[in-house]
């Protein structure tokens, strides 16, 4: 009787630990999402102080990463989780790295935005960046939703979205080159825009990585560096791994 109670107690505490770390990851994700949204707003609306505050606040993202990392090490050391629990911890450790990188890219965008704010704004008011930014923000949002819900279907959908981002990146790239050839005076600004677009494209990649960790968590399958079609086919055959 007593032993049964004890084991129940331990697993409950363990569950609470896991749940707390997961909530922390989601909170970090939420903060990163807000950072990205603010960085884009500061760029599109030419709000230099908002861009600066994004660049400064990146330090909070770093702090969150370190604190979650420590908590994960503590869980690994004291609870020695196995199977599904272990996969959750591993996925969390990887996810926060990607989130931190997304934060870094957001910081870059914020920094560039605060600089671009003092320059002449293009006629289209960075419409293409707005469009790409919206796609990428949605990817990050949906990737985190998929992470919270352990929803493989959504994860795959987000991963597929990465191709759209790549195409869009290519298109803006060409457009910028055209602008630079037409009028060399725009080169400086176009280069800055290129940096922002590059950052957004990287953020899309990080969101895709998070989706791959979701698949790893649920199926126990490492799908990194695999073509999306192959991933989908192998997932159709496989059943979710037992946790």
């Amino acid at each position, binding site marked *: 009787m007593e032993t049964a109670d004890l084991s129940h107690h331990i697993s409950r505490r363990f569950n609470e630990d896991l749940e707390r770390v997961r*909530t922390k990851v*989601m*909170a970090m994700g*939420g903060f990163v999402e*807000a950072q990205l949204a603010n960085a884009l707003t500061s760029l599109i609306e030419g709000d230099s102080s908002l861009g600066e505050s994004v660049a400064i606040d990146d330090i909070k993202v770093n702090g969150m990463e370190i604190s979650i990392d420590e908590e994960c090490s503590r869980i690994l050391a004291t609870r020695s989780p196995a199977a599904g629990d272990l996969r959750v911890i591993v996925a969390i450790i990887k996810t926060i790295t990607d989130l931190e990188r997304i934060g870094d890219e957001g910081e870059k965008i914020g920094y560039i935005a605060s600089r671009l704010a003092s320059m002449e704004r293009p006629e289209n008011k960075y419409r293409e960046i707005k469009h790409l930014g*919206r796609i990428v923000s949605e990817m990050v949002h949906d990737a985190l939703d998929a992470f*919270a*819900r352990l929803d493989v279907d959504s994860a795959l959908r987000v991963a597929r979205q990465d191709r759209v981002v790549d195409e869009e990146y290519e298109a803006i790239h060409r457009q910028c080159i055209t602008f630079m050839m037409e009028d060399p005076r725009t080169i400086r600004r176009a280069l800055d825009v290129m940096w922002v677009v590059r950052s957004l494209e990287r953020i899309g990649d990080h969101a895709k990585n998070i989706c791959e960790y979701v698949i790893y968590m649920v199926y126990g399958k490492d799908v990194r560096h695999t073509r999306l079609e192959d991933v989908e086919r192998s997932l159709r055959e496989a059943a979710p791994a037992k946790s």
Partner: protein
Amino acid sequence: MKFSQATWFLLARIGLTVLVGAFAGWLLGHVFVGVAVALALALGWQLLNLFLLDQWLRHRGSRDPPDAPGIWGEVVSEVVRLHRRKRYHKQRLLDVFRELRRSTAAMPDGVIVLNRDWEIAWFNRMAGRLLDLRRRNDLHMRINNLVREPAFARYLEAADFAEPLTIARGSDMRTYLAFQVVPYGAEQHLMLVRDVSRQVALESMRKDFVANASHELRSPLTVITGYLETLHQDPMLDLELQGPISEMLRQAQRMNSIVRDLLELSRLDAIDKQSDGEPIDVAAVASMLRKDVLAHARHPAVSIRISSDALLLGDKEEIYSAFFNLVDNAAKYTPPEGSMEIHWSVSDSGEGVFAVSDTGIGIAAEYLPRITERFYRVDAGRSRVKGGFGLGLAIVKHVLQHHGARLEIQSAEGVGSTFTCYFPAKRVLHQVNRVSIPAVAEAPH
């Protein structure tokens, strides 16, 4: 215990059977064998009925009740009656429940039931639509895992649900949702979610309009006031015109200060985070304010009491304008033979307390709750004479909000009023231990 009629019949029948058995036994010469056989038959009959009843109860749905005589029949009909009654009540409860669920589902606001750990226990259709929740996956999920906005997390953590929280959501940040949490039951929470995008848009339109209109009014007013001032000082001015001109000048100046207050308010509106601030010497501000009051032709006696040499951390201009409005109000509504006092102290709990008390006309209790509203005036005619526009206390309220402070008003009609600002302890800077100054306070100014 009182036997029913059926029980008496049963006892009578058993007695009769035993008698018949005994008689038959007596005829055959074995009385006890006869009685035993009769009892066995009676017992067999009862067992058969019991078996039938049991079978029926097990398969009650599909079979008709057994046609049993005597007490067994009564048991059967009693069971049927209870069963019917139960079914009736169940149906009624179910109807009520369905009705309740239908009505909450049809509610125009999102409703989410949360347990102690902020896990979703139930949500209605509107909540699902507003927050993009899925019925199958998202039950037992922590809400802050799905609504990840940092402001939302802070709201849940602070657990102060007096005011609803409004956050921008969606990929274009154009959807505004208002969250309201109502605690109930055993640490459960009801969360109401409303789409307030339209209200927010209207509100920002209103603010923009006020800001733009005041801004546009300012330049023509400056021109008018400028000419009026020149005319007013012109010694060649017709005697007949002197009265009207000085009245026009006074009114133009009034309009100027209305516009200034409106601009100040819309500027305060636009700032939504608390100001870090710089150390302010309250004693110096108080003596400056006193001079302002004494500059008026008819003024009450003003005394200053400084009980603490602590500095106040805040935005210098905002704080000055708030304190100015408080002191100016007190001076306006206190007759020259009255008196007023400016008092700065630090309470036992470490709060900075700035109080302005007067022996003026006071405010009736029923007006107190609304007095900090924009353009609200207790007595429109009276305050117009005094040159009030109902914006002063609105400015005070906004400034105090920016500093995390609160305003308390004590007043009795005909006796006087005391307006007290309480600043949180972290905004009070004690001079003796300057070591504990937060980094922001060190910023040069």
